[in-house]
């Protein structure tokens, strides 16, 4: 049985036409994955930066998964929304952070900050997103399976 911790934070977004932004996020996994603890979706606060272009959320993500298989590694999806002065919300961009967000580092703790480009209806924008991913305990036979996975 293998367990996976996803610990990280959504830092913020920049490059959108407006600065008053918030973000909805969620994590999608395959069938084999069970959420042990933590929230797998959520929404950040609205940040309206007065200085600078980056809307900072610093929204923590902390999940604990157990899995019985290797397929369907967690993916995170993000939607960046804009809230205008009347409180109306409008989708500005969305994106997925796919398989590369788990680093198969053989149990090493990695921390990396990845920037994902969000596809937007009108504009091409980017949101920054970091996640660090710790593969905590994968027992032996999992390693074998991983080996096959990479050597083919």
């Amino acid at each position, binding site marked *: *049985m*293998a367990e996976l911790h996803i610990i990280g934070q959504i830092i913020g977004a920049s490059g959108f036409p407006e600065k008053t932004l918030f973000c909805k996020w969620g994590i999608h996994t*395959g*069938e*084999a994955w*069970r959420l*042990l*603890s*933590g929230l797998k979706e959520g929404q950040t*606060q609205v940040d309206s930066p007065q200085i600078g272009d980056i809307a900072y959320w610093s929204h923590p993500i902390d999940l*604990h998964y*157990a899995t*019985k*298989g*290797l*397929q*369907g590694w967690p993916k995170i999806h993000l939607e960046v929304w804009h809230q205008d002065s009347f409180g109306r919300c409008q989708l500005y961009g969305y994106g997925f952070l796919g398989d590369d967000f788990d*680093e198969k*580092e*053989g149990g*090493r703790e990695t921390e990396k900050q990845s920037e994902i480009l969000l596809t937007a209806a009108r504009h091409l924008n980017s949101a920054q997103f970091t996640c660090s991913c710790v593969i905590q*305990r994968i*027992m*032996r*036979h*999992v390693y*074998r*399976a991983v*080996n*096959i996975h990479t*050597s*083919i």
Partner: protein
Amino acid sequence: MEAPEDGEEDEREALKRHLRAERQKRKKRLLEQSSIQKSRDADDVKDVTSIQQYSADEGPSEKADDSVVLSKSRTGSQKGLTSRTQHTHHLDDFVKRRLEEKLKAARSKGESLQDKEASLEFPSRLHSLRDRDTVTRFDREADADRAGRRDSPPPLSTRVRFREAARQVGKGLPTAEEAFNFFTLNFDPDPPDVIETSSRRRQKQRKTTDEDEEHEDVDEDIQEENETQSEEAPLVQTQEDLFVIDQSPQDFLEIRKAEYVGYQKLLQLQSELLFTPSFRTVPTSIKLPENMKPRYLEDEGLYVGERPPVSLTNENILENRILKMEEGKKWFGDDGRIIALPNPIKESSTRPPLFHMEEALDPALQTVYRKAVKSKYANLYIAGAADPEGDYQLDVDVSGLIFSHHPLFSREHILGARLAQMYDQYLTRQRNNLTGHLTDKLNGLRNALRNMLESHSGLNPTQALQQRISEYNLEVRNTRHLRDSEQEKDRTLLKNIVKVWKEIKALREFQKFTNTPYKLYLRRENVDRVSDEQDYEDEILAEVVELEAETEEEYQNKLAEYKKRLEEWKLCRKKQKAKKKKQKKKKKGQAQDDTEGEDEEQDVSESEGPTDEPPPKPEPPERPDLGSIEQWVREKALRIRRKPGEAILIPELSASANITASELCPRAEKARREDVARRSLFTKILYNDKEVSRTDSRSLNTDFRVHFGQIFNLKIVNCPQSISLQVFEEIGSSCSLLAQVFLPVPEPSVVTGSVPLEEFEFSSNQRVMFDHEGVGSDVPLSFEADGSNKQSLLTSGKVSCCVSWGIGDDDVPLAPPISQQPGGVHSGKGHLDAVSYIGASGLYDMKKIGEWAKQSRLDPNDPKNASIMQLLKVASSGEVTAPEYFRLEHLQEEFNFVTDEELEKSGRFRLLKLRNQEVAEFRNYKFIPALEREVTDTVFQEYEKRLKEGEVIDTKEHLDSHRALVAKYLQKIRESVINRFLLAKHHYLLSDLVTEEEIPTIGILGINLFKLAEPKRPLKPQRKERKKVTAQNLSDGDIKLLVNIIRAYDIPVRRLQSNKPGQSSHSALQGSIGLPDQIQVRPFVEVSFQRTVLQTATADGPNPCWNEELQLPFSAPNGDYSTASLQSVKDEVFINIFDEVVHETVMNDKNRGKSIQTHIEKRWLGSVKIPFSTIYSQSKIDGTFKVNTPAVLLGYSKEKSHFTNSGFDILRSLSEGTFITLFITVDPQLVPGESVREKFDTQEDERLLQASERFERDAAQRYPDRPCITTVIDLSGKTVFITRYIRPLSPPKELLDEFPNNPLEATPLVARFVSLIPSLPDQVSFSATCDLWSTCDQFLTLLAGDEEEHAVLLCNYFLSLGKKAWLIIGTAIPEGPTAYVLTLEQNLYLIWNPCSGQFYGQYDTFCPLQAVGCLVNADNVWFNIQQYTSPMRVSFDITKANLWKPFFSRTFSHPGLSSIQPEELVYRRTDRAAAAELQDRIERILKEKIMEWRPRQPTRWNRYCTTTLKQFLPKLELIRGQDVAEGHRHELQSLLGDYRISGFPLNLVFSEIRPIIEAVYSTGIHSVQASNVEFALAVYVHPYPNNVMSVWIYLASLVLT
């Protein structure tokens, strides 16, 4: 175009289409030309005059020509005009027409016209392109011939014109128009092109027409025909006119007269463009600002350096140039010269003088010639690395360093390192599981062999079969040997691990400190003894059989050999004998022939060679002893295997032991540790033997691990030859090289991120010795007691690092191509290597892999091949099934490594999930074990039990069925409330998330500065605002409860037991005689909270002053410090006042004389209970409290208060009592939970709600500290106006019946009834900060409620009794915001505490009510707008509008709100039987508890006393504990004359058994230590209507005197 008929013809079709398109284009072009011609022809006919005019324009020389020539030349000129811009395109007739119209119109304008024409045609060309198509298409067939014919003449005409023009030039000056034409006309360059292309096109057309024949329309064909004709026509014509071809190149050229500009003019032009500064000296006045005289610094005596020499002319030029520039003057100094630095050239040469003209040069200065040396790596530059962009990058990741031996290791470290190493080895062995694998293989081989033998048992074994059997036998033998050796290794390793661990333990014991954190656990895995033994025996049997067979075979072999050799030997012997005979014969005949004999001799000597030593007679082989084989096998098995039935031992090494702190270690060890702390390490990275970088210096840890964690990116140019790390050790400032580690140069495919860290070992042979505990390096040392078995260890360790090629920004590995690697490509490992066999790409091909696996005969049992075998299995099975359906995650099942059931079964996961769901049992469960087996099933037992039982209620726990039902009901309400508030709890405000420190303003800064200047007054401390701590960052031990006990008043004093025999108590006797005041009482205070008990010092007298602060630790349930959890803490702080009594007993010992034994006994006098929830919500509690003293305190009496009150009997009796002044707070200050900010649905009128909101807001604005409530939330979560709660309700009939004559007399009884209903704060019961008001019937059903419910009920009762009563909303100690009841009796206001049943006069100093916020009755709410809030200074006259602001006034009258209370309360009859049962039960439980609390002493119960006390308790209830019955005491005294009694009755409200036990425990009655103590316990439960119970417990301890 036709659609392509089929795929094959596609290409052809495309080609055709292309060609056709090309053709069309060309056709168009041609047709355009022709159409132009045509239109022109039409013009010719129509407009002769214009032509003539036009021709006249052309030139006078053409006038004489005939009309044909004229028309030709005209068209030619036109042609020339159009083709000027574009050779291949022509103007269409539309433009032409327009032009000609213009021509007509502008005829009078004459020569200027043509300029216009030229300018006009550019914009109009765009239009023409569009029109062109339509025009030409329809015309072309008709005009094809003509167009074809007409196409060629233009070049002719142009040529003619050109020649004419040239002629004219030659004649003399041309006219302006002619000149213009000459220079601007582009004489038609078409002809050669046309010829060429047309001829080419014709060929193509022929081809295409042949091909297209079937596809093309007939119409098209005709067209085609026409095309060819039309194209052929000009060709023929031009071919005839060869002259044109010869001349054609000239036609391209534009020949014009060279333009000449005169030199003077040129100069003039140049001078306009260029600026040449003059070289005349500039007058100084220009260079300086106006009206300023030049100032010469030299003249003023200042030093001015020599300026660098510049020629005057240059200087002048420069100055002139500068002056022309903007701000040119800033370049000039005060003296009018250009600012310049002094001449930089030194006066004297700095080079040492060389005088080598005659003498030899000083050898030190001799120039030495060295031949240029090529760098070693010069030719190793990586190609492409020269340009800075194509860098290659090596990433060297130096992660850390672990020493396996270090000079500073202590002995324990050595053992620890050895243990760790062996454990590692053990783990690797376990992982590889060679033993298991070999055992499997062995079994497999045996089975195969057996099968083979069985199947062929009947038949005669063939040769091949025999061969195979023997092969198998050999294999079995080899495998067994291997297996045995592996098993032996396993066994010895395990033994060694245990041995080393024992050594470590012994060492730790011996040296009395621990240095290493290692801790070894041996986990036992029990095995099934029977089956294990069976296996064991089977194994031995099999081995014995095999060995027997082997030895037998060996024996047979040997025997065979022996026989063979015996034969040989015998043969030999025979031969020898024969020879000897022969020799003898020979010797006889030797003399006869010498030569012959010699030959013979040689032969003989040759043949005699071996016979000289006759082969020894072979020994017959011994028959092997088969009996000893089994013996031997058993011995071996015993040695290398675990005994059958013995548990499998699994060692587990953890680093969890505590290292002894340095302070506790002996000096030598301390010195070693200090030495360790002083050292630090760093590594240098050497690339091609050059240091490129080094890591930071990191200090050596006590575990001899150094973590660097640095990654160095080496941008390299040279080919990597060597990469090495040098480990340096630093002590202070000196550093020494420890070791060097060479790292391999990575393959180009090894890129960063894909390689794991590798460990490289290093060691050094330095000899180091220490005088402390460090063992040194290369120093012999021994672990044996006798110093034997010495070993010397060298410094060694492992560096974990990795080298890889970097990855560029665009994910391109920054590695050089393979061919440039000096190492070259590694050769394949042999034909069995999968990659070399099928190639890398073939690895995706399952078939190929399968083939390869078959060919190389992979061992399916080998763990190395497991992945491939698995893959093959999966692949083949997948192929067989070939599913018809689509799966999103295919191979999901195959790749699962656990099933769903296993996942569900996992205790750890379950625990994690339950914790996450905040299931009550697991909420804030701290650490969940990392390993599955450490999660015990017991964890879930409680939870599962609860799930199973569900709704069933255990009546035993609650003692009372009714209360059990209530508890269930309460639980349900609680759940619904929690659910209702769940959403509200998640609504955060900004202040919940962001805490911003206030930025000090100028004002505050100023005040602070002013404060600094203030004189310091240490004797006048000022209270500072404490910082509030949010609950989430707290843990156990962080929170302390501070209880400051200041003083107490009116503590009961000891009563002199005069009627007792004199010798009873020495001290008492003494006290009675001597100073009666001093021994009155010696009280101390004991505070108990969460079973922590602290006490103050003992003070003297009935009005003691302690002024002591006690700190009690606080721990939240389950370690959960969230607000919700803290709110629901039910613990109470017990503050008990005790009297310290000292008994001295005289011991008469015959031998030693008298001795005095002192017993200190504490006697309970009274207590104060403060719930933690109150402290938490109030954050501090400060005030004087009435102590709950028992009604009767045996041996004590109240000292009468000395002041006499003003005649009100009630008041006087009220102020009697014991009081204590306390200050309680929580440190650090906790943030109390905020009330729920949620709007609730309501049935109230919107207007009323708005008004109440406004009323409350106004009140909060003007008097923020006065509570004001107008709306409350009822149990169903609806907002209700507060006055609806007030309605006269009659109290139970039984209470009134007691005083049938005077209902007023019943008042205290009613108050007592209300106070007997247990009190439970809302936040405790609902674990959320909310104020729920239940109606009176709900309250009586629940039998638990807040102060508000009590107050409402009491107020309603009072109203029904005909009193004037109000609800007071105010603050009190210790409850904080609360509700009291105010009554008006005989012009006196009485304040009732509904929870205690006590009442206070308005002017009572000890009234717990501190502030009055508002008054409520059924009609109105009045808010206190007086200056003061204290009840003593408040006037309760609500009619005065300037003192009390009414809610409903004339402007907003009472809308007639109906009450939500029921019309009448229904009471259940008192159930005396149940009460009696409860009474028995409580008594039994308490007796058990008291015995439990006295585990070391026997607890004797005085039955006689108990019965006496029991009789007394109902009387107490009757008089409600009001006045002490002196008679009762005397009664007791007379009954139990010989005992010294101390005791008291407790009166409690019944809710649960737990508070009762707590209360009894807190009195400390069980802690009497005297040996001859006896106890008496009596319980009486007095039932009131509706199951309200008053519990009396009489506790007494009796000491026989």
